């Protein structure tokens, strides 16, 4: 008896549901809010860091070492090209440095 009554309630509820939903018009779609901007965080943060690093490297770029350079050294020589200063200093070594 109990189950019969419950079935009766269920059947009646189903009919009432059908009846009440018959005239309901449901929009076909729903507008959802714009996508969360969390992706931009993932893209923007490393991109900004990379740009910053590049700028930093550019500004603080170390001077390139020069292989060839000249050292202005004036050494008095005689006609034969030999140094007239003969105090034992090896000038050739200085120049090569």
């Amino acid at each position, binding site marked *: 008896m109990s189950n019969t009554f419950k079935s009766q309630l269920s059947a009646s509820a189903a009919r009432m549901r059908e009846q009440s939903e018959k005239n309901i018009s449901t929009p076909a779609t*729903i507008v959802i809010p714009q996508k969360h901007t969390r992706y931009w965080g993932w893209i923007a943060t490393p991109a900004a860091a990379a740009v910053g690093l590049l700028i930093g490297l550019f500004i603080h770029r170390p001077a390139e070492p020069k292989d060839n350079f000249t050292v202005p050294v004036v050494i008095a020589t005689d006609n034969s090209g030999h140094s007239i200063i003969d105090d034992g200093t090896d000038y050739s070594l200085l120049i090569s440095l």
Partner: protein
Amino acid sequence: MIALFVNYKSLSDGQLMERVRRKDDEKAFAELYRRYARLLQGFFFRRLGGDEEKALDHMQDTFLKVWSSRWSYSDGQPFRTWIFTIAYNLCKNTYRQNRHEQAYLDSLPAEEPIAEDNTPLQLDAATFDSALQQELSLLNEAQQMLFELRFTQELTVPEIAAIIAIPEGTVKSRLNTLTNYLRLKLKDYE
């Protein structure tokens, strides 16, 4: 292998919601909307006094809540229970907002019961439905909600317990009380 084309209609509610949560998949969300929009609109329509506009607003609010709370959905959680919990809470909030209006409506004298005279009852489905509807309208919000969830939406006791956030035993006992009450009131129509 990466699936390029997903047949959303073949996915379960849980799988769709998982895609919504993990990938912000709008197509999966649209499929869930297609499956539940009408059901929820009907639920709100009946629970909010047959107000079509309110029902539509509440249904849309429910889906917006589903979207905005998608992170709180956990894998394997029954989607139907989850979405009805959101709908139930929205309903409760509306009841709270309309408390004064409701108090006024409750204070109105109940309508005359059906079939006061001794004329033989026409024991057909329409008569029973009408009598049941009459009795349901006299119940309080909590009892009406319980009837809706159990008999109209055909949710199980554990599902109802999860939605209303009360123990299963309490749901069972409230359902028994409700059924016995209705049986008593509708004994002439059985």
